[in-house]
């Protein structure tokens, strides 16, 4: 009954990344029709500039957070602390650079070290103490913001370290340095998940923790690992973000970005209840959100109205991600196909 093209179509419709991709394609089409200059590219001193480049560059911080968040969510958890981790890391780096003139390698070590501490703390609360992930990371979220404010005394601090500035605004081979940085992190995560058993273990823990433990998976270790990874992603996101802006505002840095990251993951096709996940989907989700933001800005949408179309797009993509609606769509599509032939 089923001809080859229709199985291909239904397989494609079943794939998780098709809907965020479709949303992205629609947005790009909209810009292509109404705002052609969106696709302009130019080079200055051999470096690539243009609205599309900016969109990718600006979405890197959420992409980094979303990469870590995807694995956490796949284990059935969630990490609300990433925004605050960014604030702590940003405040710490700015403070040490300004007060003690710590060099870039030192700052990098401090940033990753701080995220290590937070990651282990989160992971330990979740896997060894047994606190619900949402609660454990909520505690760290509140705590972290306070710590960040205390480090700088609440004051904004300028960033002058050339290494940090380079991470945020430098170019490598004509491309913003953030892009290869993201690709590296993504490649590490993807390789660890697909070429080793880690990905399988993460899914197993998220699907059924007890069963995975009984079959010999070190569920606690896996959880510790994903929270650790999520916090390190947040540290990198902080460096990229403060290097870009050139200033740390501890009250604002990373605020609400945990929600952007969760949105990117959900829009990308990973379900909040854990289990199967797609790293690529989360990256596309983050790109979709930033493309939408930039499009609305360019269209001159008043700032008090723009959350509405944003919410609508996210709602539509999430609806399309729903298993039920999707299978209905597939049925509709295949049945109309058979009628036609």
């Amino acid at each position: 009954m089923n001809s080859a093209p229709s199985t291909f179509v239904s397989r494609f419709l079943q794939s998780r990344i098709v809907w965020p991709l479709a949303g992205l394609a629609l947005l790009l089409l909209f810009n292509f029709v109404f705002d052609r200059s969106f696709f302009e590219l130019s080079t200055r001193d051999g470096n690539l500039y243009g609205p599309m480049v900016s969109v990718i560059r600006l979405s890197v911080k959420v992409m980094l957070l979303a990469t870590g968040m995807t694995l956490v969510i796949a284990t059935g958890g969630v990490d609300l602390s990433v925004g605050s981790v960014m604030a702590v890391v940003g405040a710490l780096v700015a403070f040490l650079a300004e007060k003690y003139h710590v060099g870039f390698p030192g700052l990098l070590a401090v940033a990753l070290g701080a995220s290590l501490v937070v990651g282990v703390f989160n992971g330990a609360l979740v896997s060894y103490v047994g606190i619900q992930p949402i609660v454990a990371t909520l505690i760290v979220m509140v705590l972290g913001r306070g710590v960040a404010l205390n480090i700088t005394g609440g004051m904004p601090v300028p960033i002058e370290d050339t290494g940090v500035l380079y991470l945020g605004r430098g170019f490598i081979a004509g491309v913003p340095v953030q892009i290869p940085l993201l690709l590296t992190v993504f490649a590490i995560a993807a390789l660890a998940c697909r070429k080793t058993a880690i990905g399988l273990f993460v899914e197993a823990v998220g699907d059924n923790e007890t069963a995975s433990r009984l079959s010999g998976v070190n569920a606690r270790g896996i959880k510790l690992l994903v929270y650790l990874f999520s916090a390190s992603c947040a540290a990198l996101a902080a460096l990229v973000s403060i290097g870009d802006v050139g200033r740390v505002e501890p009250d604002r840095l990373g605020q609400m970005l945990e929600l952007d990251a969760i949105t990117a993951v959900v829009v990308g096709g990973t379900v909040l209840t854990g289990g199967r996940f797609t790293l690529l989907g989360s990256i596309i989700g983050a790109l979709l959100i930033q493309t939408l933001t930039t499009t609305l800005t360019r269209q001159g949408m008043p700032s008090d109205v723009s959350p509405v179309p944003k919410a609508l797009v996210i709602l539509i993509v999430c609806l399309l991600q729903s298993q039920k609606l999707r299978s209905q769509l597939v049925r509709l599509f295949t049945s109309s196909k058979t009628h036609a032939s």
Partner: protein
Amino acid sequence: MKHTATTSSLRWTAFAILAAAITTFTGCDKKSDTQSANSQGGGKKLTVGFSQVGAESDWRVAETKSIKDEAAKRGVELKFNDAEGKVENQLTAIRSFIAQGVDAIILAPKVETGWEPVLKEAKAAKIPVILVDRGISVSDDSLFATLIASDFVAEGKLAAEWLAKKTGGKAKIIELEGSPGAAPAIDRKKGFAAGIAAFPEMKIIAAQSGDFETGKGKEVTETLLQQHGKDVTAIYAHNDNMALGAIEAIKAAGKKPGQDIIVLSIDGVKSAFQAMVKGELNCTVECNPLLGPAAFDAVEKALKGDKLDKKTIVQDRVFDQSSAAAELPNRKY
């Protein structure tokens, strides 16, 4: 799928309850640092609650410090709450001040609307509320004692007049707005629009919110410069932080801030003066944040039962590159 919808909805309900619980907890205990100064004399020490929006800008940090310092100076016990930019936290904080039976409340409101219920509770408890730096809209103005603030509309107008003089009444302007719904964002927009109305060749070609934040200011400017880069001659920001972000974006676009594109803003914080000395910012209209003395004068008057004007205006000044270097050493914040 193993997990059913019920499990996940349960999880989210649990989250909502816990979030609420923790916010309340934060509102009254964790983040409130009680500043107790040595009380002089044997009289009953005044207790005043201060609900601050957050610490998102140098300006706000200076305002907080001014109020804390003045409280310490007068021997007032200050219960301070930083709402981290969230209105819900401010409502929680005010309710907890009322529950703790403070003598007066100082409130720096994040937005204009939605204060009626909580202010009615304060009025019922006979606690006077002094508003600082931003106004609110309520149907019954007996709900607060007075508002101590700069006139934001006048600030916007001063900025427009300076720009008109500088450009000979010809400019294509990008406007970086503050947080949607915030009084300074609304009024600084209104004042600026009124100021340029007399000059038909001064036009706002794009207006977007940068949320009073350096990072957002840079992001929005980067996007808008790609679109209007050839036309734009001036950027007007509702606060200094966004202007600092805009300066970074102009530099990244390969132009000279302060020369190729005029940048002007409002607030007059120290880093804005530093930017003016460097020649990157052209003008800032001062909005004085040192409201502590005036706020506690009002608290004392209100408690004595004196009649207060509904608005106490603080005078603002305009600074540009010619006066920046001389003023910089005087900047405390």
